[in-house]
């Protein structure tokens, strides 16, 4: 794992969480002051990026009661045959409700016939304290991660422990702090301590700084790591109810890579369709169209991506998905 990007341990934002279960980070009474957690810094912009896929995808989700939901997923892909197959997922939402849109605890898991398991538990002990446990078993290897969030009046702190192995003394400890400084500016920092066999020198500590600037209908977040001379900036703008645009710039002088990406999300209310498109400096163009086929609760997803980096050998990938329920 790259030590300067510990957030690769956290799950991707939208693929595993069904939309109605997405937990907004800010409780209603504190919506003006709590700046949100550090992990969700770039979330608003990242949500606009199209989640493309290749091949076929078929998802059937069935609610067995108001708390319990079961889903079956079939993935058929030529480019990633290791991901193809059947996955069974289950979600349980608890009864403790802090606001109309949130309920705790949330237990989510999925498993496939090769016994690769992913499981998340999210629980809020009170309005201010939240914990999250994630574990995954892939091909016999176990990886676990746990984090505790404290959401104060105008700040939030998080402590995350990942892959702690006391016998070999390896693991990752991450601490986050985000403080609202003025009504539109929040500043924060992240400290990562990692120890393991693949880390150069045995152990490494990385500090990075973050800021979040909010405007009337825009949001700018930046994450800068001085030791690795890396920066990750995101800009989100809400043009009107239907059109949201975003831009992201990620650059690192250590690895000499720099990628910029612009995207937009357009909602077509009359046609029950949602379209997300993006274009980036790796000469890649991606788009996803999600269309609800009323009156049945079906959603059709069409995804296309094109890569023109090598004009003689440009690559095109298309995917089609159907979601029932």
């Amino acid at each position, binding site marked *: 794992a790259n030590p300067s990007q510990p957030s690769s341990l956290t799950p991707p934002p939208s693929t595993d969480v069904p939309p109605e279960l997405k937990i907004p980070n800010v409780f209603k009474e504190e919506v003006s002051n709590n700046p949100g957690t550090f992990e969700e810094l770039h979330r608003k912009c990242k949500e606009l990026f199209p989640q493309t896929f290749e091949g076929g995808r078929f998802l059937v989700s069935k609610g067995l009661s108001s708390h319990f939901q079961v889903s079956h997923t079939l993935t058929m892909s030529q480019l990633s045959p290791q991901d193809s197959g059947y996955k069974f997922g289950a979600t349980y939402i608890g009864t403790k409700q802090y606001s109309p849109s949130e309920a705790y605890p949330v237990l989510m898991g999925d498993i496939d016939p090769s016994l690769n398991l992913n499981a998340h538990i999210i629980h809020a002990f009170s309005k201010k304290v939240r914990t999250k446990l994630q574990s995954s078993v892939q091909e016999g290897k176990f990886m676990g991660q746990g984090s505790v969030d404290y959401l104060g009046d105008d700040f939030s702190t998080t402590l995350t422990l990942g892959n702690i192995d006391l016998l070999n003394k390896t693991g990752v400890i991450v601490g986050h702090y985000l403080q609202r400084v003025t009504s539109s500016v929040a500043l924060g920092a992240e400290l990562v301590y990692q120890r393991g066999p693949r880390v150069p020198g045995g152990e490494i500590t990385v500090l990075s700084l973050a800021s979040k600037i909010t405007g009337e209908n825009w949001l700018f977040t930046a994450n800068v790591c001085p030791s690795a001379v890396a920066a990750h900036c995101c800009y989100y703008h809400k043009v009107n109810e239907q059109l949201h645009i975003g831009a992201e710039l990620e650059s690192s002088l250590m690895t000499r890579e720099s990628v910029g990406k612009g995207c937009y999300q357009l909602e077509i209310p*009359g046609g029950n369709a949602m379209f997300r498109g993006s*274009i980036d400096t790796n000469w890649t*163009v991606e788009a996803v169209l999600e269309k609800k086929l009323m009156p049945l609760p079906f959603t059709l997803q069409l995804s296309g991506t094109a890569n*023109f980096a090598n004009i003689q050998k440009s690559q095109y990938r298309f995917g089609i998905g159907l979601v029932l329920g």
Partner: protein
Amino acid sequence: MEIPASGDQIMELTGDKLKELTNAIEDEEDDDEELDETLVERLIGLTEMFPDSVRNAVCSAGSFSWKAMQWSFSFSKSAMWVAVSAGTILVLPVMFENERAQMLDQQKQQEKQILLGPHSAMSGPGMVPPGMLPPGMVPHPHQWHPPPASS
């Protein structure tokens, strides 16, 4: 053959000497015709009147403009392809969905107009066109027929 310059030797240009002179002149003329250059060789020979630098400059300008034309043609081919395929992925579905939504809206408005009479679709007051309704009749809302199923 030297032609003598002094006047008193002019009288000697008769007879044999005159014959030799005319033969020599004709031989030179024959030599001229037997050289037989082609047109291209003559044109190339003409360029020798320009200095070296002018010749080189014109040659490189010509080959550069030919190569530039080839390059710009292949570049515009690639650029047009990239633009069209990126547009198909990014923009086409949105346009189709928008048009479809507009058409559905129009269809609904038309159906409303047919079912409820012209009053429903008109926004201005007192705009009953003459002859549309027999006097005293108001369209009865309970007599709707279910709308035809729209795909």
